């Protein structure tokens, strides 16, 4: 990366804007049961809140917000959350991804499906967020290396 002068206005502006975009991303994920939205859209908004700081202030300052080596394990963790939900449903006696068989006590079948959908949406959001950050980080590093 070339060393240009960094504008404090852009730096503070993106740092001010980033938490609100992140909050809206969580709203889109958790409100996906009642309005348009879900894991893919909310994960993209979460990635935007991280990429804004990365583009404006460089990788060093942005790594205080989200470490770049955490991106790949979290992407794999998101896939494992989704796949593990299906496997738990198999081990407790149902079909693959049959949320009625999830071992959460005190809920009826329809509410178990409600919470099962929320769990997999969180897994999707985690994967989409970290993969978009991972693609940006890898492109920037490839630019440095070339």
């Amino acid at each position, binding site marked *: 990366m070339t060393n240009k002068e960094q504008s404090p206005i852009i730096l503070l502006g993106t740092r001010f804007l980033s938490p609100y975009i992140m909050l809206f991303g969580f709203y889109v994920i958790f409100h*996906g*049961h*009642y*309005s*348009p939205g*879900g*894991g*893919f859209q909310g994960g993209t908004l979460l990635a935007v809140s991280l990429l804004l700081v990365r583009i404006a202030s460089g990788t060093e300052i942005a790594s205080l917000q989200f470490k770049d080596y955490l*991106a*790949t394990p979290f*992407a*794999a963790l*998101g*896939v494992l959350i*989704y*796949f593990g939900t*299906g496997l738990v449903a198999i081990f407790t006696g149902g079909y*693959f*991804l049959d*949320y009625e068989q999830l071992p959460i006590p005190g809920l009826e079948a*329809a*509410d178990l*499906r*409600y919470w*099962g*959908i929320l769990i*997999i*949406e969180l*897994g*999707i959001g985690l*994967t*989409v967020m*970290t*993969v978009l950050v*991972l*693609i940006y980080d*890898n*492109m920037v*590093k*490839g630019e*440095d*290396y*070339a």
Partner: protein
Amino acid sequence: MKYLKLLIIMAFTTVLLFAASDLPYRGDADNQMNQEVSMTGTEVPGNYYIQEAYNDAHTPNIVTVILGDYRSIDTLGEQIVIFTAGLITFLLLRNRKEEEGESDDE
């Protein structure tokens, strides 16, 4: 050649407009896509989704129930596609420096 392209475009536009003039109205209750039974006599699955989605999952958004519950294996495939795309950028872009450095050392 130019007039031939123009002629092809005009003919294709005529065909599309002729086909579009026979489309049914969107909210018409007599449409085939709004019927409970298809042309071949089998029951349409969308009928079941609209009627039973809230009772099955207590979620008002039918699209979320279809994507997350009824068709959840398809959504798992989409997530794995995105994860694979991230891993491919990891493999293509990140290891270049280390390979060049090793070859320089050797």
